[in-house]
Structure formats: C-alpha cells, structure tokens
C-alpha cells in the first residue's frame, strides 16, 4: 500500500511538472503574476511564488531555450514612438 502511495505521488508530481514545463512562457508568467498579486504577504508568496516568478522573468539568448531553467521568455513590448 505504501509503495503504491509513493508511486502515485511521483506520477502526480511528474504530471504537474510536465504540464507546467510545456505551458507557454507568457501564460506561465501571467499566471504567476496574478497569483503573486492575489496572495497576501506571507511565506507562500515569498518562498514559492516569487522564486518561480523570478525564474519566469524575461531572459534572452540561450536562457530562452526550452532546455534552460528559465524557459520562459516574454519579449518587452515596444512603447509607442513619441
């Protein structure tokens, strides 16, 4: 029974991780930004959401590769010309 529980947890964690890793970068960044805004100050925001958001911040060059930890890349939007 314990073995089956551990295996089920591993499969659930793998499914969550895979879904997160394959979600488009912009959607991940938006979701985390909204989650951060919705959460009040507390350890969940500081220790979980903020580090994830930092990793999802726009990054360039090789860091934009799907194989890099911060697979997210959101290109900065161009401001209107004055």
């Amino acid at each position, binding site marked *: 029974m314990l073995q089956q529980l551990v295996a089920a947890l591993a499969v659930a964690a*793998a*499914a969550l991780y895979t879904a997160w890793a*394959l979600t488009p970068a912009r959607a991940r960044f938006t979701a985390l930004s909204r989650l951060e805004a919705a959460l009040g100050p507390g350890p969940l925001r500081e220790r979980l959401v903020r580090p994830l958001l930092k990793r999802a911040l726009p990054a360039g060059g090789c860091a*934009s*590769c799907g*194989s*890099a930890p911060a697979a997210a890349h959101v290109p*900065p939007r*161009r401001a209107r010309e004055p």
Partner: protein
Amino acid sequence: MDASVIAAKDLRVALVGLPNCGKTALFNRLTGSRQKVANYPGVTVERKEGHFVGPSRRRYLVLDLPGTYSLSPTTLDEAITRDVALGRLAGEQRPEVVVLVADATHLALSLRLVLEVKRLGLPLVVALNMSDLARRRGYALDRERLSRELGAPVVETVAVAAGGADELVRELERSGALAPAVASAAAAPAADWRDPTPEEVRASHVEAARILKAIGYRVPLRSRAAVQFDQVLMHPVGGMLILAALLFFVFQAVFAWAEAPMEWIDAGVASLANALNAALPEGVLKSLLVDGIVAGVGSVLVFLPQIIILFFFILALEDSGYLPRAAYLLDRVMGSVGLSGRAFIPLLSSFACAIPGIMATRTIPNVRDRIATIMIAPLMTCSARLPVYALLIAAFIPDRAVGWMNLQGLVMFALYFAGIVSALAVAWVMKWRSKGARYHPLMLELPDYQWPNLRNLAFGLWERVQIFMVRVGGIILAMMVLLWFLSSYPAPPPGATGAPIEYSFAGMLGRALQVVFAPIGFNWQISIALVPGLAAREVAVGALGTVYAMSGNDPDLATTLTPVIAQGWPLATALALLAWYVFAPQCLSTLAVVKRETGGWRHPLIMAGYLFGLAYLAAFVTYRVALAFGGG
C-alpha cells in the same frame, strides 16, 4: 516584480558598443555571470541584465545590449539597443550611465558611435577593451588626450582577464553621475531624439578622423602569420577542403574519444539498477525506479561524453576566430540558394539548439531572408538529436575502419551533412517560389585569430553540461515517470499471455499509432516513444529505454537498450528512424519560439507541416530502399 524597488537601489549601467567588441565578456567580468561569449558578431540579440556591488557597497544593475554600429538601427537587435538607451521600451527604465565598450584594436569604427551616444546626454564612460591585446600588437594612442577630446573618462579594460574591469568599476564609483539627482534626471526618456541627417553623419565621420589624428592612433601592419593563415583558410577550394576535414575530424572524435567514459556511465547505471533490484521487494515502487526511471534516464545520460566532446570543438573553433572565416567561405553557397550571408551565424547557433539560432535571426534586416532562415533553422542538427543518432549508430553501424576512417563517425558526419543539404534545398525552393528575391551580400568583421580562452571554454562546456543535466533531471525524468504509469496500467487481464505493457494505455496508443507508422517500418514501441519525444527529441531515447524495460521480464533489459534494439529491429527500420530524425520537428519549444518571433501561428504551422511531411517521406523512401537491398 519589484522593479521599482530594484531601480531605487541600483544604478543602471548600459553596456553599448559595436558587435564583437567584448561587451558580453565585460558583462560577465562585472557581474560574474556566464552569458555566452563568442569570437564573432551577433551573439547578443537582446538585452541581458546582471548585478554587482562596488567597493562603496553601491549596487549596480548592468544591461548587456546587442552590438550596434549606430543608434539608427537597421535590424531588430540594433533597435533594442536604441530603444533601451532612449528609454523607449515599455517597462524598461532608461539607463543612468552608459559604458561605451570600444575595441582598442578597432577604435576607428567605435568613435562614430561614441560621438552619437554623447548626444544622448547620459553620463558616459568609454571602456577601451582588449587594451592588452592592442598594446601587444603595437597599437598606440594617447588615452588622456582621447578623454579630453571626448569629454568623458576613458579607461582600459581586459574583459577576459581577472581584474580586467577594476579600473572601470573605480571610474563608475568616482563618476559625478552617481549623485541621485543627476541620475534620476538622466533616466527620463529622451523625447527629443531624432536620427542624424546625412550631413550630420558625414560630419561625425570627419570628427572621428580628426580625433584619431589628434590622439596619435597608430594601427600596426597585420602580422605575417595571420595573413598567411587567411590565405590558406579562406582559399575558395583549399579553405573548403580544410573546413570539411575539420568537421569530419570532429565527428570521428565524438565517437572515438567518448567510448571509455560512456562505458563508465553505462556501468554506473547498471550498478544502480542491480543495487535497486537487490534492495527493494517486488512491487510497483521497484518497477517505477528500475524500469521507469533508471532505464529511461540512464539511456539518455550515457550520451553526456559525446555532447561534451562535440561542444568542446565548437566552442574552441568559435573562440579562435575561425568561424567567421567559415561564414565567408560558405557565403557563396548560401547566396546561390537565396540565403543572406547573415544567416550563417543563426544557422551555426542552431547546431547547439534551434531556439537561440531562431532568435539570432533578428540580426537579419530583410524580412524575407529572416523568415527563410527561421524556416530552415530546425534542419541544422541540434544537440538533442545526438543521443538518438548515437544510439542507432552504435546499435546498427559496425565499429570498423573504412580506410583510415571510422564507419560510425562517417555515418554521423553524413547525418549532419544531410541536415545541411536539406536546409539548402528548402531555402532554394523558397527562393524559387518568391520571385524577385535578391542576394544580400555578407558584410562581416573578421576578428583576429587567438588561442581559445580556457575560461570561456570551461564556462561553455559547464553550461552545456548543466543544460543537459537539467533536462535529464527535469522534463526527461518527469516524462519517464508518466510513461512508466501509462505502460503499467491498466494491469493485464487474467490469463493474458503477452507482456503487461501490451495491455496498458501506452500499448493501446502504440498500436493505434502503428497504423500510421507501419508503412515507414516503425513498430509499436517506436510509435509510443515518438509521442513523449515531441517535447524534446532525446526524450524518445529514454522512452525507448522504459518501453523495452517494461516489455520483458529480463532485469538486464533495464540497462541494455543498444543490444536489445540491435537484435529486435531490422536494419531498414533503424535507417528509417535516422531519416525521420533528420527532418522531424520534434521540439515544441522551437515551434513556440517561431510563433513568437514571426508574430503568429502561420509560420510554425507551415514549418511543422513541411518538416513532418519531409520526415515521413524520407523515412518511407529509406525504409523501402533498405528493404529492397535486403535490410529487412
């Protein structure tokens, strides 16, 4: 995020300069970062940031901007530099200080940019980079006079040497621009900026020439050895032969040198599997660990030495200054199929990974040329294909000599060559379809030859190892766990005689897909492996490891994928799978980046369609021809 909090504490310093003047190396030196550095222009295609703390405990935010020849951009990457410097990028504060990085060995080119940047009205520090190299080679100038002429501090930097940015840091600390009032005023967006008129451009050329004369800038004659090297390496025929020989040697080394370390890793994986087999009682946990994780992840991990050897050579060639010469050699070939000479660097980057290669197409000013380069970038053989190629070659191609060549290395070379030829063919078709396309000649600054910098090499290799290990420990591990679940459940019905996987979700999926893949010789195990392999190509190798481990009762199957497929597949199937992987766009990240870079779904859908079509056709033809020649 707390951008405002960071901005209030940190002084924003922008590194601006010509392509290949050493900005990224200086950025790495200042911030301790490990951004990619190469001895050719166009490596940085968008801004990067990092922090460092000065001796006064002030924190600096350093922006590494793409190289540009002027603030009147002709390409997307140059526009990023212009917009950041002017404070025109939304969500991006204007820098408070500009460090203009000037290559001391090419000062004449940098001076016009210095004069243009001065018009921004931001505090300016000029960093004469590669000043040690300039001195050694006999360049001479009066630095004090240059500082007076420019009205800005001029410091010497050696970005690739320890302590090489100390003088720059001291100057930043000393600079009066650090006063908060000046800094905040400087950080306001420049609303009154306009591009210089042709008369103003001509005037700045005249002014730059005057300053060079005033400071006594002396350029030494090129060394005799460098000239002779170029005569040989850039010869239209001899140069091409040397390039082909170099590439051939690299692929031979990938197989010959990696043999021993691969065996060590293989033995380590086998020991781990045996230890787990002995220590754990029969049950789902043991099956998950041994058949799912160790078999799947171990099948991919074993290719780490080959990836390290391949990138050692690529990084060494980059750092030595040889690659731009190769671009020059190949320009005529690329031009004949309608590609811009500027496509060489993005296509070269695609040999590591298509994603930075596709992003590097921002340096191509013509939209048609840029789209053509993006569309063929996935045909360059990225490092994720290496485990697939290496597995199939090791299983089916005899390890024997053909003359003085190794047959396995020869086949690997042929696969890389097939990718290049296919890309050129597709580019030619695109040129043929778009009437009126014209050739844009390559203009590339050839860097000096230099010995590869060991620090750059070590960082580059470490970065590749990290990327590979993150993939193995992240998406590949997660996929193997999921595949184990799909291969284990539902349990076989009572009285079932086949392997349990045949009754599982994965077995059902594999058999359904086999209808599509049977004409090209793929069995149901390969059909299963191609599905998780859509996330990334090398996942397919791990998936095959897991699927075959789940297919039999022999515990050794968990660690010996190569002999299992060698005995189980006909040669025609293996060759068809190799042909499939030359073309198949099995990388969702690449398609996502194409969508982002082209601004819509049209191009990624066309790309996926034509590449899958080519993959199926190539695999079909290969399979049928191999069968006809007795490869069944």
